[in-house]
């Protein structure tokens, strides 16, 4: 599904990540943890081709990303749903339009029934016509999750999805991600919230990857 072979990423002559080798199996659930600035977001960006490895090989869904064409990157991102920490919405479009955006750019028809079901699943049926600026932090994260899964991707990546929401909303988001994993999706969540990771352990078999000293250490199921 996702393979890193001795991957390094550097910027301005300095390595931010180095000697990263790992394989994420289909249907697996991973937490990526580590202190702020350790490189969690950089690692995730390598997972959806927003950054290119400066050394080593990254294979995403069977594709070598070293010399990948720009249109192939776009096609790849339709199979990898991403929930960004700052959500990244088009502020002039409604919540429903933002959620359906991946369908639009892929040239797929927008099925209103499916869209409503999806919005209902994340608890935003009543907020479909609202603008992103009118949503609370938790609502924004749930809308971003709905957008990430609307194309039914194989992999779902969430970068600090609970960073700006209260504990109750964190659990709600976690529950949604666990449900997706039970549907067979590969889930990667970057977080430094140990309570959330412990909570997840009771619901799903999760592997924890810890970034420290520019390298990834596998912390195993138990913390």
């Amino acid at each position, binding site marked *: 599904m996702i393979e890193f072979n001795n991957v390094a990423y550097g910027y301005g002559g300095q390595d931010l990540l180095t000697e990263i080798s790992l394989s994420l199996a289909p249907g697996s659930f991973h937490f990526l943890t580590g202190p702020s600035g350790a490189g969690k977001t950089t690692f995730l960006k390598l997972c959806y081709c927003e950054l290119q490895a400066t050394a080593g090989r990254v294979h995403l869904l069977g594709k070598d990303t070293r010399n990948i064409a*720009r249109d192939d990157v776009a096609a790849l991102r339709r199979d990898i749903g991403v929930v960004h920490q700052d959500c990244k919405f*088009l502020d002039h479009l409604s919540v429903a339009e933002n959620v359906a955006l991946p369908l639009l*750019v892929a040239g797929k028809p927008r099925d209103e029934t499916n869209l409503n079901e999806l919005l209902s699943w994340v608890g935003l049926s009543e907020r479909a016509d609202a603008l992103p600026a009118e949503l609370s932090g938790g609502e924004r994260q749930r809308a971003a999750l709905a957008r990430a899964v609307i194309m039914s991707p194989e992999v779902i990546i969430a970068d600090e999805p609970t960073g700006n929401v209260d504990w109750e909303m964190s659990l709600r988001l976690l529950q949604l991600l666990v449900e997706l994993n039970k549907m067979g999706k590969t889930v990667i969540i970057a977080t430094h919230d140990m309570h959330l990771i412990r909570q997840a352990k009771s619901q799903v078999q999760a592997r924890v990857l810890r970034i420290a000293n520019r390298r990834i250490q596998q912390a195993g199921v138990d913390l």
Partner: protein
Amino acid sequence: MSFILPFLKIDKTVQDRIVPPSGFTAQLTVLTSAAMAFLAVFALTLSLATGRLADRWAGELAQSSTVRISAPIEQVEAQTKAALAVLETTPGVREARALGADEQRALLEPWFGPTLPLDSLPLPVLIDVKETAEGYDSESLRLRLAGEAPGAVLDDHTRWRKPLITAASRLRLLGVVSLVLIGGVTAAMITLAANAALAANGQVIRVLRLVGAKDGYIASAFVRQFTFRGFSGALFGAFFGTVAIALLPDAQTTGGFLTGLGFQGYEWFWPFVIPPFAAFVAFGATRFAAKQTLKRLM
């Protein structure tokens, strides 16, 4: 041209609202396109009018010339006959005819009025010469006339016709150059406006890339906007330019060049070419700017 059609789809779906309209660049593009189309109509008029003028001068004055007999009164008739005899036997001369008094009066009337006493003036006799398609050898004709009728002077109009035709042709070229410059400036202005819009919508472009939009899709969102703006602006400009041309005084025989500025017959079709051309320029300029910008993003 079929590859342009997807970019020109005009409907108010989400697809058309992906790029938020930015007031300043939108107005700038429409205004630039309108002003350039207005100027293009005038450049087109100038080019067409000078083209007509050059053709007319070339057509009217080619294959005709004049022999002027300036001799003492008692020799005028003899030299006229001699000159006519020479002309009749000259290869390339189709017809040679001495102008009568009435014809000479008509020629001079615009300058001296209808009461000109021709009999009291020592006017030269004028012989109107029509050439065949092949024309005659003017140098050998001059030599023969000098021998048979020393007072005959051949004026084949070349001396002053050529500079006039050259001037008219250069004016036509100036019109064409102006059109090219107008097209270039339009392209440059729309490229700048498109670049400004692309820079202002950097976040929109990043989000679209992150949700899986291909470069062609993102570029087309901007291209559609700017093509439509270029077209609509040019439509206004061309319309008002054409109205302004239509309001110019009519072309008259005695009115000279300035009253001939305007379109004639099928030429009224030409201003309608300007809006699609402006749309094409906007399409190309925006597509170029979008591709350059998108290349810099992963």
